[in-house]
């Protein structure tokens, strides 16, 4: 397994290094002997993923919690009480309140009420 180690700090430079690193790294299967270098399409896909990851984006709908915990910046969904003070937190709170409120209204308004309701398994 080949890899490059460079103590770069600027994200852009870091990305360039990553691209070089990915371009020169062979595919390695854990549990198997090192194989030949990956196909270009595999490396390209891996570079895309690596770049997005380095820039704080994730291929998934939600970012890796372990990775996000190391992120800094206003866009990271912060933990604890500080989240609700952020812009995303305020929007979330409004949506939650609206969604919950309408669901509670629907629970009462849309209820098909049977004339008989059981108590402890018996009807009265």
């Amino acid at each position: 397994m080949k890899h490059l180690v460079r103590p770069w700090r600027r994200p852009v430079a870091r990305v360039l290094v990553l691209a070089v690193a990915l371009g020169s790294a062979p595919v390695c299967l854990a549990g198997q002997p090192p194989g030949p270098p990956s196909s270009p399409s595999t490396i390209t896909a891996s570079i895309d993923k690596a770049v997005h990851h380095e820039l704080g984006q994730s291929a998934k709908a939600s970012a890796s919690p372990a990775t996000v915990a190391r992120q800094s910046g206003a866009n990271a969904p912060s933990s604890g009480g500080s989240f609700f003070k952020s812009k995303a937190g305020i929007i979330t709170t409004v949506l939650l309140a609206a969604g919950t409120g309408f669901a509670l209204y629907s629970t009462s308004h849309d209820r098909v009420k049977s004339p008989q309701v059981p108590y402890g398994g018996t009807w009265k």
Partner: protein
Amino acid sequence: MKKIPATILLAVIALLVAVGASAQTQTGTIVGRVADEQGGVLPGVTVTLTGGRGSLTQVTDAKGEYRFQGLTPGEYEVTANLSSFAPRTERNLEVGLGKVLTVNLSLKLGGLSETVNVVTSSSTIDLTSPATETTISHDLLSSMPLNIGTFNTATALLNYSPGINNSSAFGGDASYGNALLMDGVDTRDPEAGSAWVFYNYNIVEEMQVAGVGAPAEYGGFSGAVINTITKSGSNVSHGLFEGRFTNSSLAGNNITSEQLTLNPALGQANQIKRLTDYTVQLGGPIKKDKAFWWASIQRYSFEQDPVGPRTKSTEVSPRYNGKVTVNLTPNDVLMGSIQYDNYNVTGRTGYPGTYSTDNQTVQEDSPETVWNVQYRKVFNSTTFLEAKVNGYGAYYNLDPVDHSPLHVDNDTGEYRGGAGSYYYAYRSRYQANVALSKYAEAFGTHNFKFGFEIERSSVHSQSEYSSCGSIGPCYFIDYSGVPTYAYSGLNYNVRSQNRRESYYAQDAWKKGRLTLNLGVRLDHIRGYSENLNKTVYSPQLAIGPRLGAVFDLTGKGNSVVRGFWGRYYEGASQSAFANAVGGYEDFVYYNVLPGNQFEEYDRATSLIYRMQSDPKHFGLNDTNVSFEQQVRRDMRFTVTGIWRDNMNFIESTLPDARWSPFPYVSPKPPGPTLTLYKWANRPASTTGSDYLIQNIDNFQFLDASGNPIAATAPYRSYRGAMFVLTKTMSHNWQGQFSYVWSHTTGNINNGGRSGFGGTGYENPVNAIVNTSGDVSNDFTHELKVMLGYTVPKVDLSINTYIRAVSGGTYTPVPSSTVSSRTLNWFSSLRPYLEPLGSYRYPMLETMDLRIEKAFRYGPHRISAWIDFGNLFNASTVTGVQTRYPNRTIAVVGGPSAVVLYDSPTIVTTPRQIMIGGRWTF
């Protein structure tokens, strides 16, 4: 040595070999070995596992190995530290439900710390489990067009798996034979085993569909198991906000003019008028690394023009979920969750089923609460304990909209009046599970698991016909519109309990390239009648051995052969002993006289059936062999041969009855003359002691002389070959392709709860006349394709689900019944005119499509999509009128129609477009 943080991304596709034992457990495991660059193991290495809810630390043993058990499925990273060596971290490690992930680390002397972001192939072979299973992640659930239309139940997801159609899994009973687990809570109806609790697919973290080759910790099913875990909070706030919508303007119409001519009642059949569904969801920390919360609120609202004479049916379901997780210590986790929802339905079919008019519908009021408390204790790297206490309480009331009594016309098949009865059901289920997992090394390695379960579930069902005036509750039997008979009584108020204790022990014993999976499950089941205050069902101890073997052909973990034999038993269910519980009223037969007068001519006293003293519980034998090959890092192929044979059928019988054969000329040409049977020695009145609920393996119907009429050995067998090719996301696309050939035969059908508490064996006309053949849910060919492609740079994804499945079977019956007087029986009957499954519906070929555009802003993903269900508006007939030569069916806004035999009554749902949007972070 100064640590200089450096982030190194490698184009390393680390094949993380998932060595999994299929498990009812809700957790996963990470194991691995730490070595130096020369391959020498490194003991004493500090290994730190970090996930969404904090960190755990271990020190590698003399072999350089570490093991983290009891992990909530999700994403993790592992860091190894040893003085004089550069620390190493691997990220993006995905732990799946019941899976064991192997992460081996190599440390370099001195130098800088290294971080590896693993680009996981995640297409991995399970090297130690003989089970064949499908895992559906939340990513798949949220990207595929799987939620079109009326999707609101877990059983709908089951049908996307290979080998499962119409909720019949590998030949099992449709809807009744499958175990449905939500965070370990069995959510089935304890009366017969159908789905009871419905839940929002957005709360699902991961879903596992298992059943073929399942180990001993799985029990209580005769089809398949859906094992679902729900989302939890973590150190980072995560949210989901989703809405989807469709209405009639986005619906197609697939009823052809030819189909409408054959059956005018089809009309605008099964059209969605409006569907709105939204979910708001959020989770996060209460206290970092110590306590977490998660909540979800959904409102699902659905209105349709159903198939048949009904014009409207609605469903509104507000649903609330909440969960709190507490790390008492890094090795002790306590979790509590609750779901409350209210299921409100109007326009549901009453007694006449799909022939119901609006007047014959019922309204449904159905609230439920599901609760769950779980505790996990990791004693050390080899020992792990799980304990759960959970259950649900619910009721389900069906009230008719029209309280007029029901009229059933035996000449025309028409229904008039109201739904005919109300039905009230109260259910509760309480369960406690304890399981101890132990890893040991002796003559290889062992993954032991020992478990104990207790279940107490209650069934309270009450029903009464609508009032017919002076005789009280009843329904009418008409002939050509003239009320001729009135059947009164048979109202019931039935109360029972299911009681079960289960024990299991299993081991995955690995020695070199061979793993032996040895296990046994013991189920002690009873049925208790509250009406009679006694145990009425006490089967023999159900002993379910499980024997499997897995062999790694090449030693590289990319090619395995599996073999398995096991015995499964169905869960505790009232259906096995319902007629022995009591709580039924007398059934009284009246002649209807002019002037609305009634004359009683017969009476069946309320019957409490006898129960065989020690029957064998219903179950099946499962044998399967499979071969699995890792084709590429992101692709694997599996071929599985499956043999299943049901056993220990339980039905009610009349052991002292004698039967006189007589010829019956089939009305359907060329139709052979059938032999039917008249009850030759029917007593003046029957009592409960005349009936016996028993295993029917050796039961025989006898003629008047006491000689056997015919061989009646009950059977139901499934033979299948399953081919599955799976590709995980790489090069912007992912997919699963499956083809299943199968053949299910029997003389016990699988269209419902047959062979497990049915009454078909009380009368030979129902039990042996043309009853052997291809069962209703026999699907010879099944092709399912799920494909997803993401257009790079524009983040536009196209996902499709293509399905081509052979039709199930149907069997003709006569329009005119054979009268009760001719049969000397309690009611008229309709015998099968040809062998079971003589005819088959056409092949169902549909394609669903989703086009989704996403926008990303840091961790935020906002997307909009459009779904096309049944993209090509296929108009496949999935139900026909089976009475020969015809049947009268009500038509809305017009005269009733005489619908010929074999005319369509149900057509697949037409094309439906749905739009949706989602914000997640």
